[in-house]
């Protein structure tokens, strides 16, 4: 319904993008319940995305989005996969600083914790935190919940999740050799980790 030339139109928060009966609100847009209009909530370029023709639901309204490179810094939400650096390992949990949410790096500091029962999927009560993580490890984890006032709850209980990069005691980056072990290329010493399955 929109011609291509108008795709570059810049909108600012509060501008009307269309009627809720005609378009769906995507990112950077919202529907006001009192008058059923779709408004922009971001500054940026308006884009109309047509629904995939094979979409299962009956709703064939196009989605209107507002995109801009300067959207606010990403924040972790439940379900997002994050990269975090382990800062402290305790008997029952490890705390980590979240560095990336999905492909984007965060602008501000967010803390997360991996509890003992969230390290792996099986035999969760036999997990030894010190044989799973070491301070300084880079971990890929899933945000379980917003957690408490202090930290987000993270989980590594999947094959693809866990330590992706770690340094050995001698300072070299270790090579994963199994899902529980990593080896130092210099000293051939083996250390225990909850290793993530990367690639393949």
């Amino acid at each position, binding site marked *: 319904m929109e011609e291509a030339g108008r795709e570059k139109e*810049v909108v*600012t*928060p*509060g*501008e*009307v993008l269309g009627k809720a009966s005609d378009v769906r609100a995507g990112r*950077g847009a*919202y529907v*006001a319940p009192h008058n059923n209009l779709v*408004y922009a*909530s*971001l*500054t*940026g*370029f308006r884009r109309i995305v047509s629904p995939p023709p094979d979409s299962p639901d009956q709703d064939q309204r196009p989605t209107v989005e507002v995109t*801009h*490179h*300067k*959207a*606010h*810094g990403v*924040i972790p*939400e439940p379900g997002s996969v994050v990269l975090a650096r382990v800062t402290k390992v305790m008997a029952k949990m490890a705390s980590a600083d979240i560095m990336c949410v999905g492909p984007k790096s965060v*602008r*501000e*500091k*967010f*803390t997360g914790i991996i509890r003992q029962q969230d390290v792996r999927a099986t035999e969760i009560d036999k997990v030894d935190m010190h044989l799973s993580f070491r301070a300084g490890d880079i971990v890929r984890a899933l945000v379980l919940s*917003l*957690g*408490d*006032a*202090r930290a*987000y709850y993270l989980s590594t209980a999947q094959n693809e999740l866990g330590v992706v990069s770690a340094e050995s005691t001698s300072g070299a980056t270790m090579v994963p050799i199994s899902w529980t072990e990593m080896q130092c290329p210099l000293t051939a010493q083996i250390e225990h980790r909850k290793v993530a399955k990367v690639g393949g």
Partner: protein
Amino acid sequence: MAGKPGTNPTTYSPSMATGKTRTPIFKDHDVDWVRPDGRGFHQCRPAFFRTGAVNSASGSAYAEFGNTKVIVSVFGPRESKKAMMYSDIGRLNCNVSYTTFATPVRGQGSDYKEFSSMLHKALEGAIILETFPKTTVDVFALVLESGGSDLHVVISCASLALADAGILMYDLVASVSLSSLGKNLVIDPVLEEESYQDGSLTITCMPSRYEVTQLSITGEWSTPKINEGMQLCLDACSKLAKIMRSCLKEATSTSQE
């Protein structure tokens, strides 16, 4: 009066809603008020906005209304302080401060706390707080020079800075204040007029949704006068919002090129 809206986006003047021109009747000398900067009663000061004034902030804006100059920076959303209770919606933290040279008397003024809480109330309703649970957005406003109507400049400027930071908002927030001097309603008062005012009316609104987020009135007002004052302010707000929008659009298009 300044030019028609649209032709000259940096000055604006609301037209009277009723359409008839008001001829103030000056019965006694006190009422005969000539504005110090020679504006019409219903004419705002020239407004100037610019986004991206502070590089380290997530978003920032600078605003200048006559002599009133403010700078607002927005940080976050970032992790709430440890002492805070868990909340499933975002928090807004506002702080207004003055430079020591903002006022004619050095380092004077003590109602920042009040301003901070008013800024908070004005913005809170416009931000979609649900989009950043558990985190805080900090808004720091600094009044570089105080030239009257400081708070409403701060509010408008802060909403621009929030938009610049990419915080999801229901609408921009525009704010305009008005003084009642004798029988006259004077829009966008300067410092001198503020100190003589009999009453003031400040409106903060979301112009495109046509909703008032904050309204405060001091002094004695009759209902018709409130009507007139509100109409004038709302008119001015929507014009102010146009300037703010054009500023944002300009910034976005230039950054894209």
